């Protein structure tokens, strides 16, 4: 057992090819040509970028993103515009009379996987045309810290009342309670086109187009 030798395994065949060493000639080993070339590259970048900074004509970070040069977005001053269908902070849309469009059906809070929406429904007062037909949210609170921006609430809403088309990302605040967006705040945020209503027409009770309370 002591003198037993194991048969040597032949090396496995590979496709690898040996990488050639850097040429050991004078040009390579004196460093100097490559140093000058390298400094030349640095200088080209320096002069190009300095000129563009001084002339104020550096490439637009989004539109000319493949240009050589400085394509940094200086964040607070410059912002990358979000894509058209970007899901941002929520907003509540309004009716023509600027009241909240939400009917407090609780579809959104039911659909929400993060359970970040809290709604307290209330009845319209006696004599209001909408009483008995729909309710309104006394409280409508979105916890933007819990929200995962999945957009299910927007999908679930039967009235086009909640939207995520503000184009604003979730904002960092100092304390947690600032992330709790209540009804008035959500109503005060316009959409990206600057409007508070939606293009989707709303048929109020009493309108000729209204389908009626007993449909």
């Amino acid at each position: 057992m002591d003198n037993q030798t194991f048969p040597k395994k032949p090396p496995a065949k590979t496709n690898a090819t040996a990488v050639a060493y850097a040429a050991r000639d004078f040009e390579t080993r004196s460093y100097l040509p490559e140093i000058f070339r390298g400094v030349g590259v640095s200088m080209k970048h320096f002069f190009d970028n300095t000129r563009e900074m001084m002339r104020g004509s550096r490439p637009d970070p989004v539109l000319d993103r493949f240009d050589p040069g400085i394509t940094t977005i200086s964040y607070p001053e410059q912002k990358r515009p979000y894509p058209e269908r970007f899901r941002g902070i929520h907003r509540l849309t309004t009716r023509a009379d600027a009241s909240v469009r939400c009917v407090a059906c609780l579809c959104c809070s039911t659909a929400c996987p993060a359970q970040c929406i809290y709604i307290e429904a209330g009845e319209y007062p006696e004599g209001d045309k909408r009483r008995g037909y729909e309710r309104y949210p006394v409280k409508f609170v979105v916890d933007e810290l819990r929200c995962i921006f999945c957009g299910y609430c927007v999908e679930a809403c039967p009235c086009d009342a909640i939207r995520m088309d503000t184009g604003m990302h979730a904002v960092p605040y100092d304390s947690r309670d600032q992330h709790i967006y209540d009804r008035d705040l959500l109503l005060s945020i316009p959409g990206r086109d600057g409007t508070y209503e939606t293009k989707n027409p709303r048929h109020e009770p009493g309108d000729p187009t209204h389908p009626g309370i007993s449909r």
Partner: protein
Amino acid sequence: MTAMQLLSTIVKILIMVGFVLNLAAILTWADRRQSSMIQDRIGPNRAVIKIFGREFRLAGLLHPAADGLKFFTKEDFMPLRADRLLFMLAPIMAMGMVFTLVGTIPFGDTICPRLFHLHFVAHWPLIEGPSAQRWGTCSPDVKNGLYPIELIAAPLGVGILYVFAMSGQGIIAAAIAGWSSDNKFSLLGALRAASQMVSYEVTLGMSLIGAMMIYGTVRLDEMVRWQDNHAWGIFVQPLAFFLFFAAAVAENKRIPFDLPEAESELVSGYFTEYAGMKFGMFYFAEYAEVVTGSMLLVTIFLGGWTLPFFHRDGLTIELGGLRLLQVPVSHVWMTLLGVLAFFGKVIVVCWMQVFVRWTLPRFRYDQLMKLGWRVLLPASLANILVTGVVWLALDKSGPAVSDALKVAGDVTQAIVAVVLAYLIGSLVVGFFAPIKHLRTLLGSSAEESVKRGGTKSEPMQA
């Protein structure tokens, strides 16, 4: 020493030290801003000063000031078992040596107060005035107490030897900083710094011996005068120029020779334990060393305060014995031009050193030592030998050769002038060249951006 000489010495010291201090501070900014331009970034531009409700950012130039303020407000930390005296002494030595070093560097031609007096008294409106003689020395006006003023803070006879003696003290500062901080990283950094600086100090001195042989002096102002009358040192000693440049960068402990403070290995080298303004002094001394190294390079190889074809008496364009143009210029203006030329050249060389720093990767330690002892030192010794042989051969040859050398010297001046003019011209032309952007609209973000009129929603400063 008359009161005027005392006063002029104080002014000279203020000019020189003030220049080194300010340029070192600006270099910390240049290092950051220039690197960002090289690497396609914007770089530091956030330090703001508000004057009358308007914000000034000055292209980020306020960052060095902000850094200085921050250094002073930092905790003055010292390791528990550090050697208190040496720990305190090291940054003082590092900084002090750099500033004593500039004493023998001339920043202008000798001033003749008599001609200044004549210029300001007799020749209103001060555009024209008496020009100095090119070859003659300034005769002192003993009656009025007007002695010639050499624009050297300390006109010592030993000249460059003093500079070497002082720059060698930087090693001691690094070594005792590392030793006294009671930290292994510091000690390793100090050892590296000491061995590296000792190695490259040899090359630094040896590379200049050829130049000293040709110039026939160790006084830096005499060296500049020789270059003024013959040719710039870079044409006479091209190899020594590169050797000296490499050795000077290694002496300054900057990339690619920044092994003593290799961040990836030694935290921060010999000043790991230093905080606040003590660290600031090391940091500042490093940049001041860049400035003084550039000053030496300019003085010995790039003609010091001289400009091509501008001599002490004015503009003289000549080729050998053939005089093409001579315009005498007032001594005052020539002095001013010389001082500006010197400081301008120093700034350009510092600017070049920043490029070297941001282009080359760091050496490995054995590569560094091999480069120092096996490449640079033999090359400098060979340079001495070749210079000596050629110098002897030219010295023994007849007047025809010396005439040819005179023509060659004038040709080098013409080359410098033409290259300088070409570079400045191409800079100006390149600055106003039209810029073409590619405009590749890719993705809905870009489309949205076009709808909103681009990304530049607010103007950016600097």
